[in-house]
Structure formats: C-alpha cells, structure tokens
C-alpha cells in the first residue's frame, strides 16, 4: 500500500515532464515517423489518386528497375567519391589552419582571422552558388582572369566533367574549413602546458614540439571527427550540388539526393524515387550507427 502511494506521488511529480515533451513528441511523430509509413510507396506502383492503400503492390520491382538503369552505378559512385573527397580535404585543411592559428601570439589578429574564416559557413549555398557561378564564369570570371595572367586558357569549371568534382570539393572546403577549426582550436587549448615545458627541457624546437606534443594531443579529436564523418558518406551535399550542377555534368556530379529530387518531384515517379531514397536511408542508418559505435569504442564518445 505504502509503495503504491509513493509511486503515485512519483508519477505526479513527473507528469509535468511528460506534458513538456508532448508537443514536440507529437510533431516528431507526425513529420518524422509519419513519412516512414510512406516508405510503402517504394514497393508499389504508386498512383497519387489511389493513395498508398489503393496502389498496386509490386514488391521489389522499383529496386530492380533502379538497378537496371544505366546511370545508377554512376550516381552511387559519384555520391561516394564526392563525399569521400570532401571528408579527407575537410579534415586536413582545418587541422593545418588551427595549428597555424595556434602559433599566432597577437590575440586581435587571431580573432580577426577567425571572424573572417567563419563567415562562409553561415551563408547559404544559394548565395555562394550565385557567387561561384559569377567568379568561375569562363568569359569574365575572376578565377579565369587570374589563370589568364599565367597564360592558361579559360576553363569552364561548372560545365566540365573533369573539373566539376574539384569545384565541389574546393568550394565545400572553402565554406566549412573556418568553422571546423573551432573544435580543433578548443582541443589545442586543452593540451597540458607542462608537456611543452618538458619538451623544451629535452631540447625540442618549435617543429619538434608541434610533431611530438601538439599533434598527438589533437589525435583523439581528429580520429573522433573522422569516424563520425564516415557516417555521412552518402550525404554528398544536396544543397551545393543542386545549385551548381547542370545536365552537362550529371555524369560526374549527379548524386543520390539530386536524383531522387528529379525522378520524384520533377518526373513524379514517386515509387522509384522513394525506393532510391529508402536505399540511401537504410545504408546511411547502418553507417551512422557503425560510426557512433566506433566513436564510442575508440574515443568513449557519447552523444549525451
């Protein structure tokens, strides 16, 4: 009897907590879990007027259709290559910049540089896309002007299959390297100063200190971020690709997300697009979970 009584008081005490969560929970159930019902479309010849329940069930046919498409392997390869290049470049540049910024003794200079390199992170790919289209233009774009000084013929960066991926990776690094230095800079300030003193006692110069104290000190966070970014290997950057690509560069630039958009919302082949999206969701989910498990094992990282 007494136990029941205290339980009741306990649940009364947590009632406000349940109520607080309720509105958010409702929205997540509708707009995050609701669409999961729609996944059924991937296994149907979906006809909008008939709805999910009324459309014909065709099993794995949409997936077979995708596999038989001549472009599907290109799209998968593009997605992985682009995001892998971004992961690698996006890991090294911020580390180098953080190391260099760490050597700056003038606080005001350091702050000024930081403010400027964080900036592109906060601009949308619409803004940056507009800027890039302008400065990469083969006729009078800024970049081709500079190449012209060295006698290089104008390059049509956004229309050339040999350049498109390089543009994607470079512009992605340009947008994000500043922002990504934040975490590395934080890791640098966390290194125990007595390690440097000991190194100096042992006769280490600046370079040796950087190699034997600073880099090993940063290693855990580098490994952690590398592992976590692997979870995103199928996210090659929809916003960026969508705003920079054109049919000329589909061969090297079309990724799963842009493909889903075109097939689904432009050509209204809902079933096929949903099947492609489902493939991406399932594989991504596997990668993300693997990344989190590895991060936990290697760096004891938990999301909360």
């Amino acid at each position, binding site marked *: 009897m007494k136990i029941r009584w205290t339980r009741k008081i306990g649940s009364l005490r947590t009632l*406000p907590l349940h109520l607080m969560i309720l509105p958010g929970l409702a929205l997540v159930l509708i707009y995050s879990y609701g669409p999961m019902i729609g996944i059924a479309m991937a296994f149907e010849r979906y006809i909008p007027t008939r709805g999910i329940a009324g459309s014909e069930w065709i099993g794995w046919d949409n997936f077979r259709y995708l596999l038989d498409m001549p472009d599907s392997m290109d799209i998968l390869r593009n997605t992985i290559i682009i995001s892998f290049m971004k992961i690698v470049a996006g890991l090294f540049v911020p580390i180098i910049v953080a190391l260099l910024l760490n050597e700056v003794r003038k606080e005001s200079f350091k702050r000024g540089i930081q403010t400027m390199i964080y900036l592109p992170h906060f601009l949308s790919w619409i803004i940056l896309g507009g800027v890039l289209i*302008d400065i990469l233009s083969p006729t009078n774009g800024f970049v081709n002007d500079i190449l012209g000084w060295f006698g290089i013929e104008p390059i049509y960066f956004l229309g050339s299959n040999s350049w498109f991926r390089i543009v994607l990776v470079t512009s992605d690094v340009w947008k994000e390297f500043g922002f990504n230095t934040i975490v590395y800079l934080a890791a640098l300030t966390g290194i125990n100063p007595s390690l440097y003193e000991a190194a100096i006692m042992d006769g280490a110069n600046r370079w040796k200190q950087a190699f034997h104290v600073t880099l090993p000190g940063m290693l855990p966070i580098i490994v952690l971020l590398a592992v976590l970014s692997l979870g995103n290997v199928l996210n090659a950057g929809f916003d960026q690709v969508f705003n920079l690509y054109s049919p000329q560069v589909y061969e090297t630039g079309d990724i799963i997300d842009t493909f889903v958009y075109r097939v689904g919302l432009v050509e209204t082949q809902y079933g096929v697009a949903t099947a492609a999206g489902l493939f991406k969701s399932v594989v991504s989910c596997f990668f993300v979970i693997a990344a989190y498990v590895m991060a936990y094992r290697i760096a004891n990282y938990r999301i909360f």
Partner: protein
Amino acid sequence: MVERYSRGRVAFVAFNYIFLTLMAAICLMPLIHVLAVSFSSSQAAAAGYVKLWPVQFTFRSYEFVSSKKEFLDSMLITLQRVGIGVSLNMLLTVLIAYPLSKETSAFRSRTVYAWIFVFTILFGGGLIPLYMMVKDTMILDSIWALVLPGAVPVFNVILMLNFFRGLPKDLEEAAYIDGAGHLTVLWKIYIPLSMASLATVTLFSTVGHWNAWFDGLIFMNSPADYPLQSYLQTVVIQQDLSMFSVKSMERYSEINDQTAKSAQIFLGALPILLLYPFLQRFFIKGIVLGSVKE
C-alpha cells in the same frame, strides 16, 4: 627564449601571418566582388571590368531591387518564417531538453523519449514520403509547411540537454525544497544559467530558417509565396525570369542582369553578416561545450 629570435622563427611567423591573411582574404573576396559588381554601372559589369572595386559607382541596382515587389514580398515571408520558426524551435528545444536532462532514476520514461528523438537523426522516410505527409496534413502552400516539419531540431536539443546536465544540482534541489515546480525551476534557474548556449542555438535556428530554400521550392506551389532564398534560387541560379511581373520585366531590361543579381545576393546575405560577429563568442563556447565532452 633564444629560439624566439632565430631566423627560422622570424621567417615562420612572417609566413604564418601572410598565409592566414590570404586564407581570410579568400573567404571574403567573393563577397567583396559581389558587392563591387552591385555598386557598378551595368555596362562596366557586363564588360567584365569589375573586380574588387566598383566601376562607375551607382546605387541603381539597389534602387531597382528595393522597388521590386517580388523581392520585398519574399523578404517579408522570410521574416515571418524566422519569427515563427525560431520561436517554435526554441520553445520546443527547451521543453524537450529539460525533461531529457533529468537522471533516469528521477524520470524513468526519459530513455524511451530520448530514443524516439534520436532515432530521427539515424533514419528518415526520405523526400517523397515527407512531401506526401506535408500534403496530407493540409499545410502545403502555407507558412506552416516551412515551420512544422523541422519544428524539433534534434541536434539543438542534444546540445541543450548536454548543457543542462552540467548545471549544478544544488540550486535545483534548494528550489524544490522551497516548493518550486518543474516549470519554475526551468524558467528561473535553467534558462538564466544557459544564456550562452541558448544564444548559440538561437543563432543556428535563425541562420537555418533564413538560409532554407528547398522547402519553399517544393512546398509552395505559387512563386508569390516563396521565401527569400527560394526566390533567389529561381532568379540567381535557375535564371528563371518567368516569375517577374511584366512591369518589373520592363525595368529589368534597363538594368544589367548581373548588377541586379549581385545586389540581391548581397541583400540576401546581409542580415547574417550583421548578426553573426556579435554572437561569435557564444557559438564558439556553445559548440565546444556541446561537442567535446570529457
């Protein structure tokens, strides 16, 4: 410190300062270029004379843009969206993060709720099913289509709940003993102590809503309902002029395409440029607290 004055050190420091300045310049140069084009005469811009400084300085493209109804309307929709969207995001973030920050012993359902929210970052229905859901809940073509599907920013919730967990428990216990309920504790203790983190999350949410364009493009059937970035996407990226009214088409032909575009690109970025330097010290702290944990 002898090595401080060594020749190698001096060379390194000089290289370092030059290199970092160059990196910062690379980040700023494109925006400076856009600004220069927007203040140049259309002839100079069309001929490709404009690099980093305006040629034949003029305000004409800004006059044109400021009189263009489509641009102003979309700006208004974006402001509305930021107002509603950010308030909703913040309210839900705090309301979800507070219960989830409790110990499992104090709030047993916590684990279940936490998994329900976290699962949404691991797996999603995909684009087409989401579109169907928005359609089925009858919010297509309204501002709610831009605000409700992303109303719960799970990453921000995680950031906030990690921060909440680090707050001293003694204050909270003292408040309970004095008879305070959960809402009082949240409002009078948690929120005042979390201003830096709240500022970070508010900045992320504001930037997110300001920069969002894809949902506007797919959930709004009429271009008249587009938020600013969706409108810019059609004008600047797709170069689709069909959405101009006849009247602004006439004036558009007088003005060079490039200068007007640049003016709109710059205006689309301006609020962010003004907002973020002030919040910089908050978000650096906020990110570090939310991501690097011991």
